């Protein structure tokens, strides 16, 4: 007989994995402790009240949320296409979609600059014809963030669509549901947890985005200077302020991730 307090063998973690797992935890937690230890606790209040901090935090929350919405609007249809329609060149498109994940964000920012910046054909046309300037603007920040965040959403949703049970969609068809009804009433509800998980990942990636944003948009307070950019700028001038800003970023991220993770994002 097995002892009662012993988990079934299949569920038990081999002890040999434990040290490495503990090292991993330390590796992730120690830098945070480093931040806490360097924080200017005595004048934290004053540092955080600086107008630049409020501007950066507001801009970060607004742009990362807009980026997430943009990723949802574009990424879910793209994931659909990649998961469900075997068009020629699909393998290539799948590789392209994941490219922003491996590319250094600075390269992404440079690419955006040369494709949509003022001196690019598209950018100059946008400015001449529509009086729209994307580079060095808040919409540009959203674009840069979306560029790096989109793959996270696409890959998550695509995986759910590929793993999903097509039998349910067939059943819906025999009940008279056309493609749109199947999508709306069967497929989307079934993959909703994965869409949410993908959106959270995309939001987190957008919130932390630095390289593409600063390359494409510079660092203009209130317009393009998001939290990561504010932290970077403060590091040179006032390291204490940088640490304080970092802690705010950590706190905001943690609150959102913990709140969402427990409740809705079992797929995460």
């Amino acid at each position, binding site marked *: 007989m097995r002892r009662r307090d012993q988990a079934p063998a299949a569920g038990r973690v081999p002890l040999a994995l434990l040290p490495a797992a503990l090292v991993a935890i330390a590796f992730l937690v120690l830098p945070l402790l480093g931040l806490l230890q360097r924080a200017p606790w005595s004048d934290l209040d004053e540092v955080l009240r600086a107008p630049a901090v409020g501007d950066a935090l507001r801009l970060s929350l607004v742009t990362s949320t807009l980026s997430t919405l943009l990723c949802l609007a574009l990424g879910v249809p793209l994931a659909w296409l990649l998961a469900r329609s075997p068009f020629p060149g699909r393998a290539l498109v799948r590789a392209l979609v994941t490219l922003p994940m491996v590319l250094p964000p600075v390269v992404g920012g440079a690419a955006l600059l040369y494709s949509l910046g003022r001196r690019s054909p598209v950018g100059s046309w946008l400015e001449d014809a529509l009086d729209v300037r994307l580079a060095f603007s808040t919409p540009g920040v959203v674009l840069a963030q979306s560029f790096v965040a989109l793959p996270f959403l696409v890959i998550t949703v695509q995986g759910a669509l590929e793993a999903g049970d097509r*039998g349910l969609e*067939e059943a819906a068809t*025999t*009940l*008279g549901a056309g493609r749109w009804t199947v999508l709306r009433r069967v497929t989307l509800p*079934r993959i909703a947890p994965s869409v949410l998980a993908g959106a959270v990942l995309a939001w987190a990636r957008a919130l932390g985005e630095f390289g593409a944003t600063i390359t494409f948009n510079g660092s203009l307070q209130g317009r393009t200077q998001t939290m990561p950019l504010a932290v970077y700028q403060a590091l040179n001038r006032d390291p204490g302020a940088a640490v304080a800003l970092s802690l705010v970023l950590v706190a905001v991220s943690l609150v959102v991730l913990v709140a969402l993770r427990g409740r809705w994002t079992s797929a995460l």
Partner: protein
Amino acid sequence: MSGSGLRAEVGVALGALDLDVALAVAPGEVVGLLGPNGAGKTTLLRALAGLRPLGAGRVVLDDVVLDAPGERRFVPPERRPIGMVFQDLRLFPHLTARDDVAFGLRARGVARGPAHATALDWLDRVGLADHAGTRTPSLSGGQAQRVALARALAPDPALLLLDEPLSALDAATRADVRRVLRAHLTAFAGPAVVVTHDAVDALTLADRLVVVDEGRVVQEGPPGEVARRPLSPWVADLVGLALVPGTAHPDGAVTAEGGHVLAVGPGDGTVAPGQAVHVAIRPSAVALFRSRPDGSPRNVWPAVVTGVEAAADRVRVQTAGPVAVAADITHAALADLALVPGDPVWVSVKATELDVYPR
């Protein structure tokens, strides 16, 4: 609802086997589609539902052509007036029983209120009025099966297709759901096709059986006829008969394949001398002896026991000999004979107990 029913010639290439089946089902008739796994039964249903386009042939329901590749006509599944119950049910896990049953009505444009009212009515008819608000994953097997039936029937389809509707249930639930299912099949005005490989389901639910094997119809007829005079080893096995192919003699005897001559009864006059026939042997007509028996039975041969299996008040003994047959004997007889696999045994069958009919 009135119509001319279902007329279908279904040709589908399935790689290893080609499905080629003609099927006609009258309004109100329930056809049981019987056959071994991989015979093409499910593919046939899917072709009728439009989930699998025909390679060749036609599907016509109530004079409307649903699929005819020769005429380049294909009505997609969502526009066919067909209700289907899948073998694995496929209830929507994110919906309640009521919303699941209402799905077909909503998809066909019925407003929310009336759709819900109809769904509740159907749940009541299958005895699940109390479970309208239950999410489908929380339903028991029998309940889920009944919801699937209600869901297929709620939009008032012109054709009902059921793929092994009772196969996932345990014996007790099965009998219960079979009763519900039979009541609804009887009440259903259109043609219905029920795929099964269970003898009881086939014999109690269907008005007519169509036996399919390797993509072809191998037998068709009233359930009693098919059960009494099966034409395929698979059906014979299903209803517990030994099926011996052979050739009829002028004197009424039959030479089984392999050369053994069986004495048979007078027959019903349908068998002509020289004709290829089946001899069906019921296990209850077979007697076993340790030594060669004397007396009237004219069919006696030595055999070897290959299997012994208890079933309720009987023991089924499989034997191999010039003709392979099974015998049903009592437990007491088994004790007297003390048979185990490998034992020699004498098999005896009365000539009048053998049923002979054309192949």
